[in-house]
Structure formats: structure tokens, C-alpha cells
């Protein structure tokens, strides 16, 4: 089912080809620098200020360029590519509106610590500051949502800037870096000498932790009676899932994985408690509230996880392991702060720790909770329940697919009912909660892994926020399986209106949405619809057997709510279970 995209040559060959010093334009310097950074796929959209860059791209075959239909599609695709592969995602847009269309995508990546190198064109240097046609101060606009940014004023700086941008994006706490290139800089010629070293005095991420703090943690585990681990996206980003598994197995400590941490620990394991927080499991939330030792590994104590901060984990000694020192003490003040790369920290800890021997009664309690209070929903033989659809997708793909989601109810159901076994197989906008992310990010993930099954789960709302990218699936035969869980309403907002705003359903009815099957077909993508279980099984099977992209619409009832649910302002053990 591989995407029909021309194969690029090996990086070594390309390095050899492009490593020679030569007088070339800024645009050619950009392309060669990208190749030398190991880039194989770029998502972009041309325009006036990047004409020189696109001119250099004409006939350039040493990486793939995917022409999206909206800059937002390009950046979400680059984001999906980065989350799936671990490499920095790259996108290109023109000045002004092209650049501002990237803003939501940059913020999405920033909130979830995703490495991106975002290239924008700008107007001629001489016109900057004059309100020229399609001018926007994109470095200024994106300052709060980038890890760093550059406005390149001299072509001589370009090789260094590109090299630094990749280094900054994909080291330490990862994040998006913006490189803004005025049109004259992309046109100017100079002697290109590849840059291979980085000299940034103000940037030295600390990866090796303080040994004294590790010793404290080892002792704390030995005496803990009710220990738990909260593992977050940092485990996946540092490539620490194997170390994580070993650490959990050795200490025998129950683990909950946050929304971004799903997949960092196999969900089939007995010690896994599911997801914590607002739509977390009964077991995970109660374990947090009752534990005496909480070991946070690469998660940031987001408000959706902690609930009411005052009453969060009230009995626990708190350990916080994070590569970003600013995360430690930002929301929750830890007793044992550990700054370092999660993988390095875990690999140093593993030889030192032993089994938490005093926690046997606790393990029994947790096993009992898991048994007594599983995730549940009322299935129906007449209606198609969204949770059932996710379970069916999980069963038919054996938890092996890369799953991307949009934001809302379907996202939470996917997080709850899809059982992840591997890291980098779950791609979702957690921090920013960006609607429109689910579908284009799947395109990026598929480009990173042409041979893997990529399933994009969307609601009927979010699907309409970037549906134009159906075109690039069809044109490039990118075989994403697009799921639309259609309940004809803006489900999560409606759920709050249902539970908290006394059923005043203000503007959450999405009636009048297009026929999604016809929409897919209009772009040349196969479209299927299911309204009951038999149709759902058949349609999904057909989708899996179809070599190219397919959109499957599952029509579900609008009154289904996501449970458990912790209402805002409550501690996380105050859960609505949905069967009250």
C-alpha cells in the first residue's frame, strides 16, 4: 500500500553530492542544507516571496515536496511526519498570509514539543517594515510559540542558520523553529560551505541528571507502599520506551500514561492503568489521589491531568523527571526534582532500583479497581456506538496502526479504546487541542512510513477544517484510512452544554455538513458509509483491503458522552462514570 512517491537516494550519496563548496543562490543553499540535514520530505505551498525557492525546487528530486492545498495542511502534515518518525518535520510557506496560515500549526507543535523547521519567505529586505504587499512580521507573531526563530538578513548566514535550526528543533525539549528568509536573500549568491558544527553559548540542554537526586528516588521506591508512575510524551520523544518497560518491570510499579504518552508502555500489561485526568480511567485517577509516591516521567502536570491542583495527589511524595528545568515546579512542586533526558535518567536508574517490595497490597488494590471499574459504554444493536467503532478498528488492526486524531469526543474515545503497543503510533494534538489536525497529520505520518497502516480518526467538525487535503491523498496515492465519526454535532462542546450548561445547545449543531462520501469522491478518494455494525464491519474491511486512500463515515448518535469525566475545578477522583 505504499505511497506512489519517487524514491529519494540515500543520504550518504546525497551528502557526497552536495557537500562541495560552490557559489550558488540562497534558495539552492536552503535546499542543499535541507538535504544535508537528512530531510526526505517537505510540505509546502508556493507564493511570491518564495518564488526563488520554488524555482530552485523545479526539477529538484533529492527530497520529496508535497504540495498541500492550504498552508495549515502543510504544517500539520510536517507535524505528523515528525511525531511518527522522530525527525524534524519541514514545511515551506510564502510571506504574509502564507506565513500566518502556519501559526496554528506552529502553536500546535510548540505545545506538544514537536520538532519542526518552518521556512517562510518574506518580502525584500528593503521593504521590511513598510507594510509591503504580503508582508507580515512572522518572527514577531510567532515569538511566543516557537522554540527559536531567525530572520535571515544575509545569505552568508543561511547555512549556519539552517544547521542551528535543526539542532535546536530536535534536541533538548523539542519544538518548532522558524526561519524567515527575505526574497532578496533567497536570490543572492554566495559560496556555499556546509556547516557541521554548532556554537550556541546560550543553548546547552542538560541531559545527565544529578546523581544525588537519583539516589533519593531509589530510596523512595524501596520504602513506598503505594507508588505509581505517570509517563508522558517525553518518554517517547527521548526514545526511552524500552528503558521505560525495563524500569516498570524491574520496580513492578503501576503506570498510567498521559494522552501524549500513550504507546510508551504496552497497554496489554497488567501494570498499565490507562490514561489519567479529565477523561482518564477510574483506576489511574484514584491511584494518583491515593498514592504515596508519584513518579512523573516526561509529563508536564497539565491541568487536564491534574484537575484541581490544590487537591492533586495529596498524599504523595512527588518526583518529577523532565528535560526542561522550567517544567519542574511550574505547576506542581516536586520533592525530588530530576532534570535530564528521560532515557539517560532511566538507564542510570535501572541498575540501581529494585522491586518496590512494600507495594503488594497496593498492586492488589489496583488490579481490583481495573477489574471492577473498566472503561465501559452502553452498546446498542440498533445504533452504531462510536466506542464500538474504535474497538472494531483496534481489533482489526491489532493495535499496530499509526492512529492520528482530531480533537474532541472521538479523540478521547480513541485514546480510551484503542490499545497502543508501540511508541510513535499515536498522533494527537494534546496541548493546543487543534481541530483540523487529525487528517493532515496522518498524511505526514504516512509519508514517514509509506508501508505502515495509518488510520486518521476525525469528527465531522474537524474533518471539515482541513478536508481540502483529500486532494493530495488522491494525487499522490497516499493510502491513509480516513475515519469520520459523524454525530452531526460538535460533540465535546455539546457534551459540556449537556452536563454543565443545562442542555442549552448553543451553536453545536453541525447539520448541513456535506455528504462525506461524496466529498471524498469529489476529490477522487473512495468514500464509504456505515450506519450499523454489519455495514461498519463490511465498510472497514473494504477500506483495509483497498490499496489507496479511503474515507469511511460512521454515522453515530449525537447524545453519546465521553466517560469518565472530571468536571473542571474538581479533584480527579470526582468522576462522572456515565452510569449514574
Amino acid at each position, binding site marked *: 500500500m505504499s505511497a506512489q512517491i519517487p524514491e529519494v537516494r540515500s543520504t550518504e550519496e546525497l551528502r557526497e553530492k552536495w557537500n562541495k563548496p560552490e557559489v550558488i543562490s540562497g534558495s539552492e543553499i536552503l535546499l542543499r542544507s535541507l538535504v544535508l540535514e537528512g530531510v526526505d520530505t517537505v510540505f509546502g505551498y508556493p507564493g511570491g516571496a518564495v518564488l526563488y525557492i520554488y524555482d530552485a525546487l523545479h526539477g529538484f528530486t533529492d527530497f520529496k515536496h508535497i504540495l498541500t492545498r492550504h498552508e495549515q495542511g502543510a504544517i500539520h502534515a510536517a507535524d505528523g511526519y515528525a511525531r511518527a518518525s522522530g525527525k524534524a518535520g519541514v514545511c515551506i510557506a510564502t510571506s504574509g498570509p502564507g506565513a500566518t496560515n502556519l501559526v496554528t500549526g506552529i502553536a500546535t507543535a510548540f505545545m506538544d514539543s514537536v520538532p519542526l523547521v518552518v521556512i517562510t519567505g518574506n518580502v525584500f529586505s528593503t521593504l521590511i517594515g513598510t507594510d509591503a504587499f504580503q508582508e507580515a512580521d512572522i518572527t514577531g507573531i510567532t515569538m511566543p510559540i516557537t522554540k527559536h526563530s531567525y530572520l535571515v538578513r544575509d545569505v552568508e548566514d543561511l547555512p549556519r542558520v539552517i544547521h542551528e535550526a535543526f539542532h535546536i528543533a530536535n534536541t533538548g525539549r523539542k519544538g518548532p523553529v522558524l526561519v524567515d528568509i527575505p526574497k532578496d536573500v533567497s536570490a543572492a549568491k554566495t559560496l556555499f560551505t556546509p556547516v557541521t558544527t554548532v556554537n550556541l553559548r546560550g543553548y546547552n540542554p542538560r541531559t545527565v541528571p544529578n546523581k544525588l537526586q537519583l539516589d533519593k528516588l531509589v530510596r523512595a521506591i524501596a520504602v513506598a507502599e503505594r507508588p505509581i508512575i505517570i509517563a508522558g510524551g517525553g518518554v517517547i520523544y527521548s526514545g526511552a520506551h524500552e528503558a521505560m518497560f525495563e524500569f516498570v518491570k524491574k520496580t513492578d510499579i503501576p503506570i498510567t500514561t498521559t494522552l501524549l504518552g500513550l504507546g510508551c508502555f504496552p497497554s496489554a500489561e497488567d501494570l498499565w492503568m490507562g490514561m489519567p485526568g479529565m477523561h482518564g480511567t477510574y483506576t489511574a485517577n484514584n491511584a494518583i489521589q491515593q498514592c504515596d509516591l508519584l513518579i512523573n516521567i516526561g509529563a508536564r502536570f497539565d491541568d487536564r491531568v491534574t484537575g484541581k491542583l490544590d487537591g492533586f495527589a495529596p498524599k504523595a511524595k512527588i518526583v518529577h523527571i523532565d528535560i526542561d528545568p*522550567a517544567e519542574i515546579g511550574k505547576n506542581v512542586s516536586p520533592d525530588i526534582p530530576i532534570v535530564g533526558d528521560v532515557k539517560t535518567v532511566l538507564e542510570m536508574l535501572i541498575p540501581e532500583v529494585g522491586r518496590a517490595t512494600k507495594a503488594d497490597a497496593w498492586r492488589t488494590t489496583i488490579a481490583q479497581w481495573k477489574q471492577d471499574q473498566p472503561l465501559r459504554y452502553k452498546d446498542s444493536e440498533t445504533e452504531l456506538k462510536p466506542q464500538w467503532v474504535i474497538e472494531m478498528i483496534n481489533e482489526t488492526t491489532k493495535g499496530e496502526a499509526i492512529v492520528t486524531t482530531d480533537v474532541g469526543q472521538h479523540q478521547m474515545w480513541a485514546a480510551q479504546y484503542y490499545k497502543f503497543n508501540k511508541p510513535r503510533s499515536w498522533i494527537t494534538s494534546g496541548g493546543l487541542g487543534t481541530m483540523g489536525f487529525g487528517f493532515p497529520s496522518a498524511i505526514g505520518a504516512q509519508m514517514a512510513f509509506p508501508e505502515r497502516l495509518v488510520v486518521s480518526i476525525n469528527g465531522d467538525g474537524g474533518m471539515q477544517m482541513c478536508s481540502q487535503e483529500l486532494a493530495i491523498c488522491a494525487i499522490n496515492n497516499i493510502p491513509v484510512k480516513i475515519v469520520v465519526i459523524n454525530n452531526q454535532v460538535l460533540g465535546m462542546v455539546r457534551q459540556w452544554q449537556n452536563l454543565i450548561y443545562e442542555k442549552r445547545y448553543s451553536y453545536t449543531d453541525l447539520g448541513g455538513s456535506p455528504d462525506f462520501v461524496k466529498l471524498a469522491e469529489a476529490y477522487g478518494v473512495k468514500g464509504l458509509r456505515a450506519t450499523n455494525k454489519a455495514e461498519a464491519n463490511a465498510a472497514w474491511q473494504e477500506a483495509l483491503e483497498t490499496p489507496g486512500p479511503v474515507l469511511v463515515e460512521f454515522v453515530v448518535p449525537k447524545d453519546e458522552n465521553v466517560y469518565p469525566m472530571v468536571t473542571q475545578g474538581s479533584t480527579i477522583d470526582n468522576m462522572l462514570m456515565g452510569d449514574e
Partner: protein
Amino acid sequence: MKHTIAVLVNDQPGVLQRVSGLFGRRGFNIESITVGQSEEVGLSRMVIVTLGDQSTLEQIEKQLYKLIDVIKVVDLGSRPMVARELALIKVKSEPAERPEIMGVIETFRASVVDIGSTSLLVQAVGDTQKIDAMIELLKPYGIKELSRTGVTAMIRGNG
């Protein structure tokens, strides 16, 4: 609580915006901010006076370090320091009032840097309290214009 921090930064376009923007969006207070050359070519030093408790100060330092253009952050209040600001104060002054005003100025070891027909331009250097006190004493005469640099500061001794 008031804190004075020195931030050594790359002298790059936009660096002031990066630092002040960080304070703004994270809800940190800026009482004053001064920027100028440092002892090293290519680096500037900012001195920022801010209000907040100890945990806020810790977050400010950590968040500042996340900026790539920030090289070093020093909490000047952690050790004995010298903190000074300069104020230019244009005071209303009829010729008959001048001797009295000069008395105030001399007491504060300030100086008169310009004399107009009905005003005096006073330059005062000192810590914030001294400048505040002097302004209070000059107010009755009528302050036509006031401009303060904000605090710049340094740790005492060889360190």
C-alpha cells in the same frame, strides 16, 4: 518582593522583544528594564527589576534560560549589590525660588545640568529610594517633566 536580575544576552535584533514578551505572556511583572553593552563585544546586559515571590523568581530565571539568546541570568539580590538609576527632573523654578531648590539638590548630591528662565533641569543618581525621596521633595515646586532610566546594578566585590 522586589528582585533585581541581570540577564546577559546576545546583542541580536529582537532580543529585547523576546525577553519582554516572555515576561508579558507568562504574567511576570517588569518594574524596570535597562539594556546596554556588556564587557564583551556582541553581548548586552539587561537589568530587570521585577516583583514576585521566590517561586516566581525561579520560574523567571528558568524561562529566561529557555531563550536561545540568553547566555546567563544572575539574581543580583542573592548577594550584596550596588543598584543605581539616573533621573532627569525638570522643576519649575522662578529665579527667586532657585536658592531653596538648590538646597534640596545639594543635600541629595544631585546636580543642575541646565537652567531655563523658569525651570531647572536636575540630574540625580542613586538608588531608587533616594530618587523617590528627592522627587517627593521637588514636587511642591512643580515637576514639569520627569525621566528615569530604571535600575542598573552589579554585585559588589571581585566576584
